[in-house]
């Protein structure tokens, strides 16, 4: 952490501190760009909904908290921003005001607060057993103090990491995602899925590498358990997405699965895997925002929410469905699109780690899940462009540059970042290296 700035002080350890490091800056840039693009898109989408002043107020406030979270320099500040981000993003979920959306917002709140409370308890323990709460590569726990309490500390580490995993949709705290995303307005689901889940990832990176430390966790049951949870989530998310007809819910399950790819990389705990994780975080943000914006466009013009109703729609909305196809290819990870490189690093990182069974099981599950991803994304485009014989002509139209331009920018990014990956890769490699 450089440029650390202390804003408020409770005690010498408990301070409100902001600073920046390469990882934080990367996430800051990522979420800010996404927020701007989705914000532009929302300027058109807002015709579809009421209470826009309220929506944009909370939209901006959520970004402020998310940006603060990326710049948090210690555990306390991170927790503070995390909690406020939850509270301020909740109105985005319940924006439509229907009973389902209110129930979904409550569910979101319950899972997030549950996770954050586990994180808070973790902080109390770190405050007792650590030298500081400031993020330090290699961890902050004091070996003299934890001697004899290793079991306890491992449990604390496991629970607090899994707690923040609620935001990232880590099994078993993933259930809010598929409930909250479909009911939120499309711009809100885009940033919830693309950016806010990444806040959970960032918190977990901070905890694993800069609070508890890789030395403490590597090779323990905690690492095993977390990797297993991530793998379960990857597989389960894909399976659920595969069987889901409601388009936004399908994408939400896909998010559950894809964010756990990132977490898998984080939990593997070596530089290659972490690089893969950061890359995948960026790619998934771009692609999933794009997918949700496409879904929003379709709903905006046709009010169709189910995949089965979209047959033949691609001919009426070629730009949207074309972008959808690009995003699908990217998410499946077909070279040269964006998703390929990250999965490559994730798999090779996992293979080089040498954990029993999991080392090879992880790449296998990644592969299987990629197949499933193809299975739940490609049919949308295929049926969109090539409806079966005798299908009635679909109603729909394309329009509004405000909606199409952000989607096209994201689609272009998916292709270009895939082909010209090295600047991003080098930057993230440097960021990953600072974590060890």
């Amino acid at each position, binding site marked *: 952490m450089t440029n650390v700035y202390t804003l*408020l002080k409770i005690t010498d350890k408990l301070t409100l501190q902001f600073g920046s490091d390469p990882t934080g800056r990367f996430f800051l840039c990522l979420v800010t760009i996404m927020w701007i693009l989705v914000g532009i898109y929302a300027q058109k989408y807002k015709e579809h909904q009421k209470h826009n002043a309220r929506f944009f107020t909370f939209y901006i406030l959520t970004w402020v908290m998310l940006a603060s979270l990326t710049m948090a320099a210690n555990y306390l500040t991170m927790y*503070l921003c995390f909690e406020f981000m939850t509270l301020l993003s909740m109105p985005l979920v319940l924006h439509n005001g229907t009973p389902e959306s209110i129930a979904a917002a409550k569910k979101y709140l319950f899972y997030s607060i549950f996770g954050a409370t586990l994180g808070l308890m973790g902080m109390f323990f770190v405050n007792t057993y650590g030298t500081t709460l400031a993020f330090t590569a290699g961890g902050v726990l004091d070996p003299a103090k934890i001697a004899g309490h290793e079991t306890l500390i491992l449990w604390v580490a496991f629970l607090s990491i899994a707690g923040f995993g609620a935001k990232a949709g880590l099994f078993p705290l993933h259930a809010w995602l598929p409930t909250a995303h479909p009911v939120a307005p499309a711009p809100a689901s885009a940033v919830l899925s693309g950016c806010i889940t990444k806040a959970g990832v960032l918190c977990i990176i901070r905890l694993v590498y800069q609070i508890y430390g890789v030395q403490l966790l590597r090779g323990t049951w905690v690492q095993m358990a977390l990797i297993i949870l991530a793998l379960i989530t990857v597989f389960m998310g894909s399976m659920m997405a595969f069987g889901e007809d409601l388009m936004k819910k399908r994408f939400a399950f896909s998010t559950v699965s894809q964010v756990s790819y990132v977490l898998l990389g984080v939990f593997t705990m070596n530089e290659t895997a972490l690089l893969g994780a950061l890359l995948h975080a960026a790619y998934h943000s771009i692609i999933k925002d794009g997918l949700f914006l496409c879904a929003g466009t379709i709903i905006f013009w046709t009010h169709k929410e189910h995949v089965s109703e979209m047959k033949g729609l691609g001919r009426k909305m070629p730009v949207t469905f074309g972008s959808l196809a690009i995003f699908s290819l990217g998410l499946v990870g077909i070279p040269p699109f964006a998703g390929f490189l990250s999965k490559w690093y994730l798999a090779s990182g996992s293979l080089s780690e040498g954990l029993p069974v999991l080392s090879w099981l992880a790449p296998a599950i990644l592969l299987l899940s990629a197949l499933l991803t193809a299975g739940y994304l490609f049919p949308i485009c295929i049926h969109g462009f090539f409806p079966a014989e005798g299908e009635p002509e679909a109603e729909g139209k394309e329009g509004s540059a405000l909606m199409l331009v952000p989607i096209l920018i994201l689609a272009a990014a998916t292709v270009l970042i895939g082909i010209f990956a090295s600047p991003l890769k080098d930057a993230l490699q440097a960021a990953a290296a600072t974590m060890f």
Partner: protein
Amino acid sequence: MNFVQNIPALSILLLMFCGIVCLVLPARWARHLADCAIALVCAASVVLWVAFLRGQEVFTYSMGEIGAPFGNELRAGMLEAAAATLFSAVTLLSILGGRAHLRADIGKKKVNLYYISVLFLLCSMLALVYTNDLFTAYVFVEINTITACGIVMSKEDGYTLAASMRYFIMSLIGSGLFLIAVSILYALTGHLLMSNIQEEVAALYASGQYRAPLQVSIALMGVGLSLKSALWPFSSWLPDAHSSASASSSAMLSGLVLKSFIFLLVKVFYRVVGVTIIPTHAILDLLLVFGILGMIMGSVNALFERDIKRMLAYSSIGQIGYIFCGIGLGTIAGVAAAMVQIAVHACTKAMLFCAAGGLMDASGGSKKFKDLEGAGRRDTYAGVAFIVGTLSMIGIPFFGGFITKLSLVTAAVEVGGWRNTLSILAIIVSTILTAIYYINVLAIIFRGAETGPTTAREKLREQWKKQMRLDTEYELAIVLFILLNLAIGLQSDRLMDVIRTGLAMFG
């Protein structure tokens, strides 16, 4: 003798004297006199506190210069001074915050009686804080009970009568148990002054004589006082009494009265029984378990409540559980955490009750959630107060509630075994439940005002505008409450120092 040493006795006597004078004054003057007396006591307590910070030693004050073991003593240290400041400040703010309601709720003829009750209530709480004599403590426990019922009953409707009768009966059982315990201790030791009893108790423990009656009397005191401070299974009287009373009465009852008995309980444990003996007594485990159950059950009940004042009352039961959890850990750090919680909860809950009064005003006097929609926008001060209260209850850093949780978990970590695991789990569960029902309230009071003016809502708004003029005092009280909460959150280091020093002076 230093002048500040007179402050404890003078505060108690001043409040009593003003209470009596209130009886013969016109209502308006009674009100002013009560305000001034409480403000004066608050200022004097601050002076005493500052004197301790500047190095004043702990002192005992013999009433009428009759020395121990026969006389009646007050004993003051850092913690007592801080508690007196807290109690008088929160009483003052509660009266200010609920003034509009007092006018509406209390008949013209009852105004004097109300202020007499308030003055005597504060007087008895300060006496419980300062006294070093068990029997005096008992007397003031009774005064406390009677005046507390008085301020509940002063709002004249059927509910408050029934509620205060229940409260009265439960309270009397509690003080009866306490009295029995005091008699047993007197019979065993021949003393009523706390310090003298402690010497005798230590001697009795060392010799092994009368072990059973000693244990019983300690247990009776614990049970009696926890009954009066609404520890969970004994808390059935609380929701009715606290929710039916006028806003400032509820604020004082929930914020302070319960705490004064807990303060006495800590005093009994650490000054009468002694820090070496009490950790071995099973009563602590009992209090811990019931505290933990209270944390959870209070929150669960609050979760299903659809009446804002009853919800706050159930929330109090949960928060009282935190205090007992801290005491039940049986370490000094645990008691310190309990003390922090006393301060935090006194400020937060009193603020929330005053704000609930504001919300009710803005909604035509209804306490039901369905009528409160949008009330937080009509009365912004109450809305902000609820936001602050919620953030504090969730445990967001820089608010008071965070400090409670921090000190409680830190205390629990240091204790080994099942106490550790159980209390931390309970804190997690209760934090989550608390967060949910408070955020639920926020969602209700901020929702719906935009949905276009209906006639009923317009009417409410008109009513509210008329009442606005009365409410500078209310606004001032809410702002000061919020500042108090933030001050605890931001200056927790100093607060913890005060509490630790105070506890060291305690025994």
